[in-house]
C-alpha cells in the first residue's frame, strides 16, 4: 500500500478512528496489526521476514543484556548482524554479486555458469534491517536497555508510517514513545495533517510532475551540455521532492497518531559542502552510517589515511545500501571522494579564504553542481549511460531554456512553500490567514495539478 493510493485513503481514516478509541496496550496491538496489514497489502509472504527479524532481534537483545561476558555478548550481536545482513544480502545483493562475478569471469575469458535466482526485493528491507540492527547494537553498546514487551518491539520494527522508506528510527527515540500512553491532541492532529499535506504536495505535484521531464532527458541519446545540466537539476528536485515528500507524509501521519518521527531532510541543497550536505540529506541514514559504520571502522581516531579510507568505505557501502547496481557504488565512491577532498581542503586550503556571505553563496552554488552530478550517477540506468552523460558535459549545445522551465513550474513553488513551513514561520508564527492560504495553494496544486505515480523512488531501496 502506498500513501498516494485509494487503499490508503480508506485505510488510514479507519485506523485513525479505531486507534484513538483504544487504550495503550490495545492501541499497540492494533497498531501492529494495522502495520502488518499495510505491509501485507503489498505481499503478505514477506511479512515472515519482518516477523523473523523481529523475533531474532528481540531475543538477541535480551541475551546480550543478560550477559556480562564480553565474548558472549559479542557472539549474540554477531548473530544479529549475520541474520539481518544475511537476509539483506540474499534478497538484495545475491543476483548482483553473481552477475558481477560472471561478468568478471567473462572479461578474463572464462565462462562461469552460475544461475541467478528470481528473487523479489522485499519493499523496505533496507530500512527495517538497519532499524533493528541499530537496536541490537545499542543494547550491545549499553546505550539502551532491551524492550520487555514483544508487541512494543514488533511495532518498533514494523510501524507502518515509516516501515517502507524511513526515516530510520532509533530505538532510543521510538520505543519510549510506543511504550508510553499517547494523548489525543487536536493541535497535534492538525499539525500532522498539514505536514502530510505538504508531503503530498511535494510528492504528487512536484516529484511526479518532474518525473516525465527527467525520464525524457535521460532517454535522450547523445545529450549535450545543457541537456545533461537540465537532467541533473531536474532529477535533484524530483528525488528530493519524492523522498522528502514521503518523509513528510510519514511524519505527519505518525504525528496524528501521537508519535513523533525524526526529521530526515533540512534544506540539503543549501549545503556549502559535502559534509553539510550529509547533515541535511537523509539524516536518519547518514547518522546511522556515521554511528554504526564509520565510528565502528575507527572514524577519525587512527590518523588521516585511515580516516579517508573509513570515509570512503562508509560512503561506498552507503551507496550500495541504495541498490544492487554499479552506478550506486560509483555514486557512493563519488560522495566519499567529495568528503575526502573537502576534509583535505579544510585542513590545507580553507584558511586562505576570508569567510563571508558571497563566499558562502558561491560555495552553495558550487557544491550544488557536484550534488547534481552525483544525482546523474544515481539516476543512470547503466555505467554506459554514466559515461554518456558525463561525456555530454563536454559537448557543446545551444541553450534550450524550455528544458529548465519545469524548475520554475514545480521546484520554485516547492522551495517557497517549504521555506515558509520549515523555517517554522508557517506553523507557529505566520498569521492564520497567510498560513491557511499557503496550505490552500499546496492542496489545490497537489489535488488538481498533481500526477499520480504508483511508487516512491526510495521504495526500491
Amino acid at each position: 500500500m502506498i500513501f498516494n493510493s485509494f487503499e490508503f485513503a480508506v485505510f488510514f481514516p479507519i485506523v485513525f478512528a479505531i486507534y484513538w478509541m483504544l487504550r495503550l496496550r490495545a492501541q499497540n496491538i492494533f497498531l501492529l496489526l494495522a502495520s502488518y496489514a499495510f505491509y501485507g497489502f503489498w505481499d503478505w509472504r514477506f511479512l515472515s521476514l519482518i516477523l523473523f527479524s523481529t523475533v531474532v532481534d528481540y531475543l538477541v537483545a535480551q541475551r546480550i543484556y543478560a550477559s556480562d561476558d564480553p565474548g558472549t555478548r559479542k557472539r549474540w550481536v554477531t548473530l544479529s548482524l549475520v541474520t539481518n545482513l544475511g537476509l539483506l544480502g540474499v534478497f538484495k545483493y545475491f543476483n548482483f554479486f553473481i552477475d558481477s562475478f560472471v561478468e568478471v569471469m567473462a572479461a578474463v575469458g572464462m565462462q562461469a555458469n552460475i544461475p541467478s535466482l528470481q528473487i523479489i526485493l522485499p519493499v523496505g528491507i533496507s530500512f527495517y534491517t538497519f532499524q533493528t540492527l541499530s537496536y541490537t547494537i545499542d543494547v550491545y553498546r549499553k546505550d539502551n536497555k532491551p524492550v520487555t514487551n514483544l508487541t512494543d518491539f514488533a511495532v518498533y520494527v514494523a510501524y507502518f508510517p515509516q516501515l517502507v522508506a524511513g526515516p530510520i528510527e532509533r530505538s532510543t527515540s521510538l520505543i519510549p514513545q510506543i511504550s508510553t500512553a499517547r494523548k489525543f491532541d487536536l493541535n497535534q492532529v492538525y499539525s500532522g495533517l498539514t505536514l502530510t499535506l505538504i508531503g503530498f504536495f511535494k510528492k504528487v505535484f512536484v516529484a511526479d510532475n518532474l518525473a516525465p521531464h527527467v525520464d525524457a532527458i535521460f532517454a535522450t541519446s547523445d545529450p549535450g551540455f545543457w541537456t545533461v545540466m537540465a537532467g541533473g537539476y531536474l532529477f535533484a528536485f524530483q528525488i528530493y521532492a519524492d523522498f522528502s515528500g514521503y518523509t513528510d507524509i510519514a511524519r505527519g501521519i505518525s504525528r496524528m497518531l501521537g508519535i513523533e518521527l525524526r526529521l530526515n531532510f533540512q534544506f540539503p541543497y543549501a549545503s556549502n559542502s559535502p559534509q553539510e550536505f550529509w547533515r541535511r540529506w537523509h539524516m536518519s541514514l547518514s547518522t546511522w552510517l556515521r554511528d554504526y559504520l564509520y565510528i565502528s571502522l575507527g572514524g577519525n581516531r587512527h590518523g588521516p589515511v585511515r580516516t579517508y579510507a573509513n570515509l570512503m568505505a562508509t560512503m561506498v557501502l552507503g551507496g550500495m545500501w541504495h541498490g544492487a547496481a554499479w552506478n550506486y557504488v560509483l555514486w557512493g565512491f563519488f560522495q566519499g571522494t567529495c568528503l575526502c577532498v573537502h576534509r583535505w581542503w579544510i585542513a590545507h586550503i580553507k584558511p586562505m579564504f576570508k569567510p563571508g556571505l558571497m563566499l558562502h553563496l558561491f560555495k552553495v552554488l558550487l557544491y550544488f553542481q557536484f550534488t547534481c552530478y552525483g544525482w546523474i550517477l544515481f539516476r543512470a540506468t547503466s555505467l554506459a549511460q554514466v559515461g554518456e552523460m558525463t561525456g555530454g558535459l563536454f559537448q557543446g549545445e545551444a541553450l534550450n531554456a524550455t528544458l529548465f522551465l519545469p524548475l520554475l513550474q514545480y521546484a520554485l513553488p516547492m522551495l517557497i512553500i517549504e521555506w515558509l513551513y520549515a523555517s517554522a514561520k508557517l506553523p507557529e508564527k505566520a498569521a492564520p490567514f497567510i498560513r491557511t492560504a499557503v496550505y490552500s495553494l499546496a492542496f489545490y496544486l497537489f489535488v488538481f495539478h498533481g500526477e499520480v505515480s504508483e511508487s516512491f523512488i526510495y521504495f526500491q531501496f
Partner: protein
Amino acid sequence: MLNTLIKLAGFGLLFIVLVELIARTEDSVRYDAPFWGHYHLEGIRGVDDRGTVRCEANSRYKHFELGANGFRLTPHLENADRSLIWLGASEAFGLYETPGEDIANQLERGFARDGVSVDVVNASCFGLNLTRLQRIVEDPVAGMQPELLALYPTPHFYLDMIEVKADAPPEPSANNGGAGGGFVSRVATKSRDVIKAFLPLALQDRIRVYQASRALGNTSDDELWKTPPADRLALFEAHTRGLLTAAKATGARVALLTHANAFHKQATLNESLLQSWQKFYPRATGEVLIEFDAQANELLRRLAREYNVALIDIAEKVAGDPSDFADFSHFTDTGAAKVAAELEAWVLAN
C-alpha cells in the same frame, strides 16, 4: 478543547473559501472564464445568429486547453493557395490532445513543413451529429468556397437513448460563461473528475454500470439492443446522404473518413474502456457499439463510392495501437498525428 475545535473549524472554512478562490483565479487567468458565475464546457459551444452550432476559436476549458483553431465566425479563408475545411464532432475538434496537437493544427504544420500553402479551418465541434454537420456545410461552409472538405462522421451518436432527429438547433447553453444562476463550486466540479480517476478501476466500472442502469430508468429489456439496430443505421445512412449531397454542392473536393475506435483490431478487449463508452449509450451492449461502428464504416465506404468522393479509411489505418486513443474514440497526440498524415496524403494527391 472546544476553543481548539472552533479555531480549527474556522481554519477549515477559510481553507475551503481560499481553495475555491484559487480555482476561480486559475480558470479566469488560464481559460478566460468568468470569475463569478457559471463556467461549463458548454460555454465554448454556441449557436450563431444563423442557427449554426459552432465551437469558439481557440476555446479553452479547464482540464484541456483545447487550443484547436476552432470554427472561425467570420467566414473567410486565409490568403493561401488552397483551403481545407475539417469537419466533425469532438474527435475532430480535439478533446484530449495537448494544445496545438489537435488534428487541424498538426495538419497545418505538416503542410508548412512540406512547403505547401494550405489554410486549414477546424470547423468541428463536440456533439455534432450529421444533421448539424450538414447545417454547417450549407451555411457558412458553402459560402466560404473551400477547395477541400474533409468529413468525419460519428456513428455512435445514432445509438443515443432518443432518436436523432433532423434537428432544430439546440438552445444556447444557460451556462455560457455568464453570471447568474445559483452558486456552483468550481472545486466541487473539478473534484468529481479527480476522485473518479483516483478510484480503483473495478470500482470505476461498477459506478459506470450503475450510471448506465440509472440512465436506462424504466427501459424494458425488449428495448435494449442485442444487435445493431437497423432503424438507427438507416437513419445514419439517410443523414450521411444528406451531408454528402450538401458537401458536393459546395463545389469542394470531398473526403469522407471512416470512424476509428479503440477496439478495432485489438487482440483483447479492454472491458473497462468499453464500459466507459457504453455508459453514454446504455441501450447498447459494448459489442453492439463496436459492431454498429463497423457496419456504419462499411456504409461510409459504400456511400463514398456511390457519391464519388474520396474515402480515407481511418478506421483501418488508425487501429491496433491503444496509445492512439485517449478513450474509446478520441485521439491522443499520436493518433491525431496519424489522422493528420492521412489527410495530408489525400490533399497532396489531389
